Structure formats: C-alpha cells, structure tokens
C-alpha cells in the first residue's frame, strides 16, 4: 500500500514538473535595485508588480510570474543574470534593462535563444539599426529621440546660442548628438564633465562668463540633482533658462524641489497625459505606493501589458513565438502613453512632449505637459534595419 502510494506520488511529481513549466508565464526582469540608481529599479519593479496585479496575476488564463534580477549597473552581471534566467528559470520573456551597455551585453544570449527581449528603458542606436532583431522590441524609445525633440523645440522657438553639457560617456555623447541633429541654432559651447561628478560650480562659473541664451543638459540621476540645485544656488536659474532631458523626473524632483521650478524637460510620457489607461495607472500607482510614478515606471507598466497582449493573442501557447512576435508588432494594448505603432525596427513611433517644472497643489514639484513637439516621431536609425513590415 505504502509503496504504491510513493510510486503514485513520485509519478505525479514527474508528470507535473514539466507540465508546470509550460503552464506558467515567466518573465525575467533585469533592473538596478542597489546603489545610487536603486531608486530607478524601485520605480520599475513597483510598476511591473502593479501591472501584474491589475491583470489578476494571470495572462490568458495562465499564472504569470516576474523574476527580478539586480544588474548593479554592470554589463557582466546583467549578462550572467540573463543566462541564469534563460537556463534555470526558463523564462519566456526578458524585460526591464535600464542601461544601454547592459542591454547590449544581454542581447546576444537572449536573442540567440529565441526568447523575446523587451527593453523597458534602454534604446541604444545599434539595436534600432544594424542589430535590429525580430524577437527584440522596445517599450520605451531610442536614446536619441528625446534630445532630438528638445533640439526641435528650441529651433522652433528660434532659441540660439545654447550651451551644451553632458557627462563624458557614451550616452552623454549620443544625447548631444541627438540634440544637434535637430537643433539649427548656434552652439555656444559643448562641455563634457566627468561621469558621476558632484560639484558643478566650476562649470557654472564658466556658463556665467559665457553668457549663453540657454543651457541644455543631460544629467541623469544624482548628477542631475546636484546640477539643478547648484544652478539655482548660483542665481542663474531665472536668468538663463535650463532645458534638459532625463534630468528632472519623479526620481530626482523630490530631492531638488523648488530649485527645478521653471526648467524645461522633454519626453514621451507624462503623468498628466489624458488617456484613460494613464489616469488609471497614475492614480493606482500613487494609491498603492504613496509616491509619484516616473517614466521608468510607465515604461515598465507598459512592458508587462505588452507581453500580456502577446500571450493573449496566442491563447497562452507560449511555444508559438512567431505568433507572439506578430502580436507584439501590433502593440495591441492600452498603453499609458496613448496608442502607438511599431516601426520596422520594433521601436515605437510615438509622440514627444515638452514639459515645464511647476509646483503641484500638494506642494511637490512636477512636470507639466506644455505641448506636443513631435507627432509620431521615428528614430534616425530605422533605415539601417534589415527587417521589413
């Protein structure tokens, strides 16, 4: 009797184990959860969890699970995480990824395994152009597009004599290159500072001496907090307008406060965009986590819903990768940025907006949407991509 019981039990285990793997959607989510950039990871993780909760924890009737990994901002760690997720966790999708260098490092193992890779932030130009792939999608933007929007806006306002600043690393140069692609006015100077620099008084003194008409910067994370505060303390805020990208957002504004008031930012998403999905997302996020979601959160929320749209289209048949890729390409879900479609390189064709930093009713400083800069903007690299619709 007992022997039979054990036999039956082990048979049951043997049978359920492989069956379990096929009846669960597994999503690998690589982000940065430790160190100074840990706050970005927190926004992304909270948003992805919220998206899954809204779906009732299920996709096309299958239970779904998100497996998080902390890349510590390091490409080698990111690659190791991706390999673990592919081999040990047998994930069906890999998403997240803040940093372009991490995305480029995990690209090869993930894409060559046939697994679908969805970037919820990074958009290096390589993946939009020569390295574009059928099983890669972006739920965010190509790196150059946001500074392009700011360049376009400043040109349209006939602002000239602009002082450019960015940290001295690959994305810093890409950002200024993107800006210059659309900016037609005169450039007063182009200054690169050390990556991770904390004191900008030296450079701000030079800005004052140069007397430009405007300043354009790219200072993500802590660098942005420091730059904006010191810019205000030097008395230049209000005299020389500050335009920035990826600098003033909900991850940095709580620490900068009034020192950012009146600055301009550009981006593809804002909390006040008038779409039902967006209103629901923002209010639920604030109610659940008691802080304001950033664009990092919006992209992550969209990435999970994008995945859901693909799983639903193939009715939970996760073996049907071709079907899922075809479904992803339709972007058939209620994106918080509003409806968009995919370009041949699987990057969104989407709007870009101008924001101004203002004081909200509750005393916090937020980005207020001023106007649309680009309608349905395409990135600069899609022609280099070998794929077609």
């Amino acid at each position, binding site marked *: 009797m007992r022997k039979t019981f054990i036999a039956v039990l082990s048979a049951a285990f043997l049978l359920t184990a492989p069956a379990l793997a096929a009846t669960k959607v597994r999503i690998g989510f690589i982000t940065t959860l430790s*160190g*100074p950039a*840990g*706050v970005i990871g*927190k926004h992304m993780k909270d948003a992805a969890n919220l998206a899954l909760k809204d779906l009732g924890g299920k996709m096309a009737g299958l239970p779904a699970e998100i497996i998080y990994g902390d890349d510590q901002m390091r490409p080698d760690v990111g690659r190791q995480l991706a390999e673990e997720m592919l081999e040990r966790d047998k994930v069906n999708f890999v998403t997240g990824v803040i940093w372009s260098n991490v995305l480029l490092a995990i690209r090869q193992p993930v894409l060559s395994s046939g697994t679908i890779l969805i970037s919820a932030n990074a958009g290096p130009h390589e993946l939009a152009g020569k390295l574009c792939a059928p099983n890669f999608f972006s739920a965010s933007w190509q790196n150059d597009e946001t500074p392009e929007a700011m360049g376009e806006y400043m040109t349209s306002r006939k602002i000239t004599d602009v002082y450019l600043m960015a940290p*001295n690393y690959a994305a810093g140069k890409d950002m200024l290159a993107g800006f210059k692609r659309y900016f037609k006015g005169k450039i007063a100077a*182009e*200054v*690169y*500072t*050390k990556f*991770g620099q*904390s*004191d900008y*008084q*030296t*450079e701000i*003194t*030079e800005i004052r*001496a140069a007397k430009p008409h405007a300043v354009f910067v790219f200072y993500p994370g*802590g660098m942005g*907090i*420091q730059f904006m*505060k*010191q810019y205000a*303390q*030097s*008395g230049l805020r209000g005299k020389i307008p500050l335009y920035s990208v990826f600098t003033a957002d909900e*991850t*940095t504004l*709580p*620490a*900068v*406060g*009034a*020192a950012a008031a009146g600055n301009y930012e550009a981006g593809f998403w804002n909390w006040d965009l008038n779409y039902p999905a967006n209103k629901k997302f923002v209010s639920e996020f604030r109610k659940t986590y008691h*802080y304001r979601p950033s664009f990092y959160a919006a992209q992550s929320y969209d990435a999970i819903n994008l995945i859901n749209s693909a799983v639903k289209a193939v009715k939970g048949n996760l073996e049907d990768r071709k079907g899922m890729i075809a479904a992803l390409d339709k972007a058939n879900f209620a994106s918080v940025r509003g409806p968009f479609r995919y370009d041949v390189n699987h990057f969104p064709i989407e709007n870009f907006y101008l924001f101004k930093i203002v004081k909200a009713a509750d005393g916090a400083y937020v980005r207020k949407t001023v106007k649309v800069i680009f309608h349905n903007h395409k990135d600069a690299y899609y022609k280099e991509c070998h794929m077609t619709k």
Partner: protein
Amino acid sequence: MPYLLVLEEALNGIELGIMLFLMAAGLTLIFGIMNLINLAHGSFYMVGAYVSAATFAKTGSFFLALAAGVAAGAVVGVFTEIVVFRTLYRRDHLDQVLATFGLVLFFNEAVRILWGPTALYATVPRFLSGQVDILPGAPYPAYRLAIIVVGLLVAGLLYGLVAKTRIGMLIRAGASNRVMVGALGVNVRLLYTLLFATGAALAALAGLMAGPIFTVDSGMGDSVMIQAFVVIVIGGIGSIRGAFVAALLVGFVGTMGRAFLSPLLATVMAPSAADNAGPTLASMAIYFLMATVLFFRPQGLFPPQAR
C-alpha cells in the same frame, strides 16, 4: 584670460578644499594617532547629511538640523569606536580595511532601509540662499561663502586645540610616539574615543553642509573618501596642518584643472580632441599632484616629527 573668471574659479577651489579639509582632519588624526585605516569615515559624513536633512524636514529649523547632524555623527562615531574599532586597533591594516569596508556597506544599506532609496531633499537655509557680489559683477553663492567661513573657523579651533591645550599636547604626543604616551599613564582608550568622536563630528559637519549642494543619498560619502585619502597622504599622515594645506592644494588643482585644461589644450590641439582629453586629464590632476609630492617627499608635506 578674464581675471574675474580665474578669481572665481580660485574661490571655487578654496571652497572645495575646505570641504575636503573637514573630512581629512578627522581621518588624518585617526590614521596618524590610532594607526587605524577607517574607510567608514565617509559613512559619518553620510549620517550627518541624512540626520540633518531629516531634522530640517521635520522642524524647519536650520540650527536644530545642524546640531542634530553633528551630534548624530559624534554618537555614531563613539558607538562604532566602542563596538567595532576597539577590537581592530591591534590588528593589521588589511583586517582594518576589510572590517571598515564592511561598515561602509552596512551604513549604506542602513540609511536605505531607514529613509528609502530616493535621495533626500536638503535645501539651503533662506538667509544663505542668495548670492553675494565678491567683486562687482561676480556674484557668488552665499552658502558657499558660508562654508568657507565655517571651515576656516573649524580649522582655527582645531589648531588652537592641538597647539595650545593639554589634550592637544597629548594628541601630538600620540602622533609622534603612541607607546610612550600610554606608558606615561595617559588614559589612551578615553583619548582615542574622544578623538574618534571629534573626527566623526567633523565629517558629519562636512556632510550636512554638503547636503544642500550635493545629493543626500546612500553612498554619498564614498567618493569624498577617495579624495580625503589623497589629501592626508599629500599632507603627511597625522598632521592637521598638512591636511589643511593639502586639502586647499587638492581643491585648487582639481578645480583649476577642470576649468582651464580643456581651453589650454585647445590652443595646442584640435578643439574636439581637447574636449575629450581635457576632462579625462583634469580628473587625473589630483593624482598627478599626489604622485609628484610622494616622489619628492614620501612622508607627505608636513609629516609629524620623530615617529
């Protein structure tokens, strides 16, 4: 070259140097007298900034925030001295580096648990938020001038303490020959604890003054520590005077390098190449300075005598 710009940049250098001095003063005393390498000194800087920012957010009083930040630094300093460092004095430097590096990780994670991963909001008090015309047409942030004043005051006080008082005499004696001081019946353990508290409080003061300028976030003390070590190595380990001169030198060289290296290079090479080389060379400038000083004076500029 506009002289006004050079003058302003020089002032920037002094201001940076003063901040570094506050960090380095405690570090050099602890290293020089207790022969202890304390990588966690930057954590006291961070604790000072966090407690002060949190107090300011709660009470809105700048002076309360100042007092709370300095006190927190001293208390945390004394606590870690008693719990951790007392067992480390007799160990070799490698053990000290490992243990204090562990402390850095501990403190970075502790503030993240207590205050969350988002950087804290720290602002300049209203009466220091404006600019002062140091010369006509050269406005300078009042807050940074205040930092210079506070730093000079602290330097003066420390000099008085070390050069004129009995405790200072013991400290100097300790820097020269620790064993002899103990043999003469001085309560070395108490002296060490006091010294540690002072060093930690100075670091906390630097941290809370840095808060409104930089980011108050987990790990904010780590980058300052590297420069503080450069300062004490240049100044001569254990010497307050050395730390003061070296801090100003490091602040000055670093700032001038960042400000004028790129334009200077552009006169001899293509501007785009200078734009690339300038920031890279500038960030190396203080290490060049350290290497040069060490080449000519391996003991640093002002080594304590007769070790």
